[in-house]
């Protein structure tokens, strides 16, 4: 037992190290999300429950599910003793040093859950033979990839959000499923859905997997479903867990007859197809193609420039979009595309009993599909795929290759989040540090099986470096800066979208191929 405790001392070192590291950025730039969360502290502290989702004196209305609002209320209890002024509703844009310290520390502290989840994930790693050297143990590599993740560090601790806490729930729930403790996993995920509804994107994977692998206990010899083995008690247990969590969270609002108000706050469909900075997804490619066609059409005199709608997409504001040449995309179409994209994955884990890893793969595909085809996707949502993929990456060579492409492109697409000059050095150094680590550590881990990336991928990633240098350093000095201010964003999104789509397809291939292998056996 003592030896085991000893062997985990590196985890404590990593966790303490990263927590202190986060504290260094307390005085760094923070985005409007800081004020959003301060406002929520004020709303949940000073208003009764019935007003939470009606309050709109600030433009940053409460648009997370009720459990998160309760979390804010809990934080407000501590904030009261710290600096009571931040809890006043009319105190808009209040950011005294004490407030900044409190909010930043609250993120660092809630991250403790993420640290615990990362530790649980590290314990789920399957290793054939654990190397003696700590640095080349898969669990060590995974711990670094999760705890020191570039995206989480900049989004949470500089940009300001509570993603670490939320991903803590997700990873913990994944870890519980990997450990075959499905009820706990389901409970955690239900709680997570009530903390932030963006995780609905991966709910299909949870639903199908739990139904298939937990509620049906036996299979036919060929691996397909045996309907007679249905265990109603298990379904009942699952159902009651999920229903009770939702009842706890939404029940009071249903009782007050405010459900529709809450839902309208949670799902604001009036926002545009693409977020302020284009997330590197299929719609970025679509809009990029539209732009290219428009320019081409004007050049070839097929289109009149005056007839084109003003290219509102590129203004950097959250608003409606109109495409110039290609048909505009309604929300329903994005929903349909997303469903079509996840369907094969869901079918694949339904038709045959698959291991817990296949569930994780399916979850990743759901996350990526919704990222690629979803409506108004934030570029931050890429973390939903990058973080769980870390687990697979330390276990297999092929996934490691996918991880490198996806994490590099996905992380780079986060760059526009930090645009202030003082944070430039931080984002560049942190990104380079994380990238060097992930390349060398994963390469070292799978070194017996050859290189991780094929030449084409290497060329693509080198191209990404070139795009980065061009956009961040050369473009601001060039004369195009005035004329085409959106060009770097466009180039970045389109280029990164290629990498993300490629990773999506390759990940799909790994899931379906393992399916076929099983069939042949």
């Amino acid at each position, binding site marked *: 037992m003592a030896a085991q405790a000893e062997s985990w*001392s590196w985890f404590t*070192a990593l966790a*303490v*190290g990263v927590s*202190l*590291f986060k*504290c*260094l*950025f*307390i*005085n*760094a730039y923070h985005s409007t999300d800081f004020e959003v969360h301060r406002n929520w502290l004020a709303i949940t502290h000073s208003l009764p429950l019935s007003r939470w989702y009606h309050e709109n004196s600030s433009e940053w209305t409460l648009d997370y599910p009720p459990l998160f609002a309760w979390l804010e209320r809990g934080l407000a209890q501590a904030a009261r003793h710290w600096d009571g002024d931040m809890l006043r509703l009319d105190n808009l844009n209040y950011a005294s040093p004490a407030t900044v*310290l409190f909010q930043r520390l609250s993120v660092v502290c809630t991250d403790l859950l993420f640290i615990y989840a990362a530790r649980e994930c590290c314990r789920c790693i399957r290793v054939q033979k654990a190397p003696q050297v700590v*640095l*080349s143990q898969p669990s060590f590599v995974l711990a670094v990839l999760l705890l020191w993740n570039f995206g989480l560090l900049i989004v949470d601790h500089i940009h300001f959000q509570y993603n670490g806490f939320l991903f803590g729930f997700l990873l913990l729930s994944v870890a519980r499923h990997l450990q075959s403790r499905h009820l706990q996993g389901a409970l955690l995920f239900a709680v997570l859905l009530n903390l932030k509804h963006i995780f609905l994107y991966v709910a299909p994977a949870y639903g199908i997997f739990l139904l298939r692998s937990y509620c049906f206990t036996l299979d036919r010899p060929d691996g397909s479903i045996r309907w007679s083995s249905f265990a109603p008690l298990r379904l009942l247990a699952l159902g009651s867990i999920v229903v009770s969590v939702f009842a706890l969270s939404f029940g009071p609002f249903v009782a007050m007859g405010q459900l529709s108000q809450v839902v309208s706050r949670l799902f604001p469909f009036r926002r545009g197809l693409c977020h302020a900075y284009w997330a590197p997804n299929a719609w970025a490619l679509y809009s990029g193609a539209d732009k290219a066609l428009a320019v081409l059409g004007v050049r070839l005199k097929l289109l009149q420039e005056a007839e084109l709608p003003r290219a509102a997409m590129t203004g950097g504001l959250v608003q409606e979009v109109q495409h110039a040449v290609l048909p505009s995309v309604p929300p329903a179409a994005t929903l349909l595309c997303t469903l079509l994209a996840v369907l094969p994955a869901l079918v694949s884990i339904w038709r045959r009993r698959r291991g817990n890893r296949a569930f994780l793969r399916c979850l990743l595909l759901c996350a990526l599909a919704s990222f690629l085809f979803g409506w108004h996707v934030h570029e931050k949502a890429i973390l939903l795929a990058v973080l769980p993929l870390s687990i697979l990456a330390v276990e297999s060579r092929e996934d490691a290759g996918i991880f490198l492409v996806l994490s590099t492109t996905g992380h780079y697409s986060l760059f526009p989040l930090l645009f202030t*000059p*003082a944070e430039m*050095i*931080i984002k560049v*150094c*942190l990104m*380079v*540090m994380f990238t*060097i*680590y992930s*390349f*060398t*550590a994963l390469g*070292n881990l799978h070194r017996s099986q050859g290189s991780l990336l094929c030449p084409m991928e290497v060329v693509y990633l080198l191209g990404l470096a070139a795009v980065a240098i061009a956009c961040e350093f050369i473009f601001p000095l060039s004369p195009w800066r005035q004329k085409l201010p959106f060009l770097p964003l466009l180039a970045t999104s389109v280029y990164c979208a290629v990498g993300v789509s490629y990773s999506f397809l390759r990940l799909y291939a790994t899931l379906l191929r393992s399916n076929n292998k099983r069939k042949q056996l």
Partner: protein
Amino acid sequence: MQTWSLVSISVLLAVLVRWGVSLNSYSGAGKPPMFGDYEAQRHWQEVTYNLPLQQWYFNTSDNDLNYWGLDYPPLTAYHSWLCAYVANILNPDWVELHRSRGYESPAHKLFMRTTVLVTDVLIYIPAVVLYCLYLTDGSAKRRVSILLSILLYPGLILIDYGHFQYNGVSLGFALWGVLALGLGWNSLGSLAFSLALNYKQMELYHALPFFCFLLGKCIKAGLIGRGFVLLVKITATVLVTFGLCWLPFLPDNSQVLQVVRRIFPVARGLFEDKVANTWCSLNTLIKIRSILTSDSQLYLSLAFTLLAALPSSIRLLMKPTFWNFKLALVNSSLAFFLFSYQVHEKSILLAALPVCLLLNEFPLMCVWFLQASTFSMLPLFLKDGLLVPYTVTFLGFPFLTVYLLSALDDCSEDELKLGICGKLFPLIPKIHLACIMKWKFYISMALMAVLSVLSVVMDPPPHLPDLFPVLVSTTAFMHFLGVFLHFSMVQFMEPPRKKSRKKNN
């Protein structure tokens, strides 16, 4: 993992921590009329850029020496001029004569912080990397651990990136000197050290060991034969370097004299503020400054400094090994810090640098000292509003180093080099000594933590307004004295055989 990737990750982490600290406040932010060291550096840029070189060190109508007059050697002035040149391109308001006084803006802060980072990346960090890769024993992992520990030493980071100074330059040059001497390139080493001396006169703390090491090498090679050639080469290098640095001032004797007068301000008294050296600590018991005249104070401190520094230097002269050189650097700089005239609390960085170089051999002692040295500057950090970065690095550094270097497991190795203790106290079994060391370490860490918290949280009683600064400096002084005695003892014992064979170059 390949060494290159570990090294680059360490360097990037070091840069990130530095930049993270630099997002905080600086000395004298928004405190007219005098501001602080940040304004001093900006003012030097203004003066050097706008005035002819002959007026830099003189009090003129355009150059008020009472307002942060230039009091560092010429290399600092040239560096200021270079920064001012860049500043003038970016925004002429930053260095405009007279009108830019007290200029503060986020963009300017960013510029100033960047200049510090640039010099660090160019001078200090490469020297540390090379030192750890080429002059440190042990596995690749061990060397990278040492590298990370040295780069993350909080004292230097907080002073350079928080308080605002360019210590990385002079310390970096000195380290280049150590590095070159360690690799056997004597001329290059003396060149680098001359540059260090010409950047900050405080580098004199290291001068004695450098001098003795080089002289000792010459003597060993035979003063009539090869040693003489070596001596001539070194002397020529030093003279030429100094000559080039002072070239613009040389034609006029009064210029040189004025620079020297500015650099060594004898009139400023035995000590200022609360500094963790002997005189200030003694001052709580005896008011030396009122008993002795300022001349006798000067002689007294000179005598004590020489008395404390000479033994280790003479030892080095007799046995010019790299091992002795490193120890002599520690002893000499500590002797100067503890006993010399007009010491600043920031001067402890000069002792911290050579202590960092011994991290591999004495992990516990060095971590302990480095921690105490950061602690000794606490009042300064509090004044500058650096509480958050101080807390983070003060907690992080011992945790990280103790983990990386397994400092607490190696107490027994400390005794190994302290054979004399075994002779003095034969009754204490070895295992107990290790245990005692460990507990002393814990207690002292706890003491420093408690004093830090008290300084922040409590108001001192009205009749003792300086209670906490005095407590801090006295505590730190005891640590420094202990470390000084420890390393003096170590130097006068035979070096451990394994090390001596490798280090004899």
